[in-house]
């Protein structure tokens, strides 16, 4: 299925939104305006965007500690995101969740997650719900390469296959789990080698190429919608910043040359070249998109900065839901 120019431009814009949102958040953190831990998604934009472009609003996704990109790609509101990261009452979680628990149920985004691998069984639950209700909605679980070493991932992958649920597993293989090279944490190079152990197909895709990610995901999603069960998509990608925070070069565990080489394959800039070379968009159009997003981000920051912190009374609100199905 050919993507229209409009779709391709939308994908480009979505990637730029992630990029600029993250870099703005990183700066705010640097200057002490953003509390807590920030795991920036920069570098991996093609994955979230390529995948989410293959989804409908009513499809579900679960995410990770590195979750901003997934929410932006699913259509998240930048202002509510920025406010949440700043701990404001107007944020997505009223300031109670922060970066690691950001979510938008109305967009089917069932949450970033602070526990490695823990979102994957939750996606299986959403997939179960879809099948249970006879709906053709799908559920996508995003997770990192190193997260596939944790039991929850395994149980979830197996259960989705055993129960034949419409779940697509998207592994973002960025070669590291925190500061440990993944090659030290697993004796295989490709996470896709695990798919056969659950009885699902798996495919490796260039995670720096948004169109490739999109195409591979489209197929996996279509299969799941048709009731043919789960599949795994492994996107080879790279995070441009440190595990958390904004350092790029000069970290002990990653050679600078490696970082630089991956940055040369920047998923946004390479896509822009293709858009221009393919006659899909002009440089001006692209610049215009950046400008629009810059304005959106500035507005989001302004909104967040001008928002109040939650009242003390919010502390105990929302631990339980009042009422029930009675």
């Amino acid at each position, binding site marked *: 299925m050919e993507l229209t120019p409009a779709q391709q431009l939308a994908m480009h814009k979505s990637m730029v939104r992630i990029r600029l949102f993250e870099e703005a958040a990183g700066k705010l953190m640097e200057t002490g305006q953003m509390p807590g831990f920030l795991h920036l998604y920069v570098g991996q934009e093609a994955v979230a965007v390529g995948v989410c472009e293959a989804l409908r609003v009513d499809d579900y996704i679960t995410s990770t500690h590195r979750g901003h990109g997934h929410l932006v790609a699913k259509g998240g509101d930048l202002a509510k995101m920025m406010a949440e990261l700043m701990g404001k009452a107007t944020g997505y979680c009223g*300031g109670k969740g922060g970066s690691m628990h950001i979510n938008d149920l109305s967009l089917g985004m069932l949450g970033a997650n602070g526990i490695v691998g823990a979102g994957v069984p939750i996606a299986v*639950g959403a997939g179960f719900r879809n099948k*249970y209700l006879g709906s053709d909605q799908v559920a996508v679980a995003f997770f990192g390469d190193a997260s596939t070493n944790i039991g929850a991932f395994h149980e979830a992958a197996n*259960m989705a296959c055993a*129960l034949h649920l419409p779940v697509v597993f998207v592994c973002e293989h960025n070669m590291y789990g925190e500061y440990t090279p993944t090659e030290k944490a697993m004796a295989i190079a490709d996470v896709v080698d695990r798919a056969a152990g659950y009885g699902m197909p798996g495919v490796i895709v260039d995670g720096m190429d948004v169109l490739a990610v999109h195409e591979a995901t489209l197929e996996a999603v279509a299969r799941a919608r048709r009731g043919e069960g789960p599949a795994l998509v492994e996107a080879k990608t790279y995070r441009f910043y440190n595990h958390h925070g904004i350092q790029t070069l000069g970290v002990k565990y990653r050679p600078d040359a490696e970082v630089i080489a991956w940055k040369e394959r920047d998923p946004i800039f390479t896509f822009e070249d293709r858009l221009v070379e393919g006659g899909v968009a002009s440089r001006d159009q692209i610049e215009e998109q950046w400008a629009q997003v810059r304005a959106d981000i500035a507005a989001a920051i302004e909104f967040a900065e001008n928002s109040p912190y939650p009242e003390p009374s919010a502390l105990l*609100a929302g631990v339980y839901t009042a009422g029930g*199905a009675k």
Partner: protein
Amino acid sequence: MSDRTLTYGQAFSEAIRLEMEADPNVFIAGEDVGAHGGVFHTFDGVQSEFGERRAVDTPISEQAIIGLGVGAAVTGLRPIVDLMFMDFSLVAADQIVNQAAKLKYMFGGEAKLPMVITTHGGAGLSAAAQHSQSLEALFCHIPGLQVVFPSNAYDVKGLMASAILEDNPVLFVLHKRMLGLKGPVPEGRYTVPLGQAMVTREGSDVTVVSWGRTHNEALAAAETLAGEGVQVEVIDLRTLSPLDTATVVASVKKTNRVVVAHEAVRFGGFGAEVAAQIQEEAFDYLDAPVGRVGAPFSPVPFTPALENLYVPDAARIAESVRAALARPLLG
């Protein structure tokens, strides 16, 4: 009360079947809960009535079982997910504590998470250290969860109905030694509200607060003590979290002496919370320290020769009550 009797286990499956009839979004999932009706047969009849779609046998994957519940609940279903033995809750503790319990709060209060986690706790079957624990204290400490531990068939059915209708995650514990215990159970749907303790025997001399199987030991102890001229008031907490402190404190203000008894290990057990609250709220009324009865500080031993010593029984409760009564009034 109805004259129809059901066992504690049957009352459980009846509650599930009635609520599944009433709401198509309620389903059960867990290891062997479907075709086999659960290892303890507490899900008997569910799959035959509702089919494989709504009574789902899962792989042996406790984390994914709870995760399936979380994901299904947050997207609109009302899952009942089973952990077979309470000891296995430890395998799934992250999904229960870090996900199910906290999701709503972390998400800013918008999410709804109507799910029941069912399990079978307690000792008494010579099932040894990994199949006999009473771990309710762990989950009572976790904001966002509710914890239910009934002592009779009537309450099992009514509390389970409430748990299924509840919009928050509930950990529902059946005591595996009580499954065959019969009691009157009305036929139709009814609920016993969560969070309400019940005075199951009135008395004026001393209060015993308990739950689950130990509650019935408390009743037996009260009977013995009645023969000694002591009138024991017995309270069955039924729901541990939220704790019905008011009912407990009202009783203690009347009797001035109290023993909290449970099957779990005494040290760090939930009885400590009950005791701490009693002395906070009824300090001036207490004529003796709040007594606590619980298992000693060891894993559950296998051999009946030791397990029988390990599990707190009526005799130990009676002993603790006598100690509370023996205490002279001061001042």
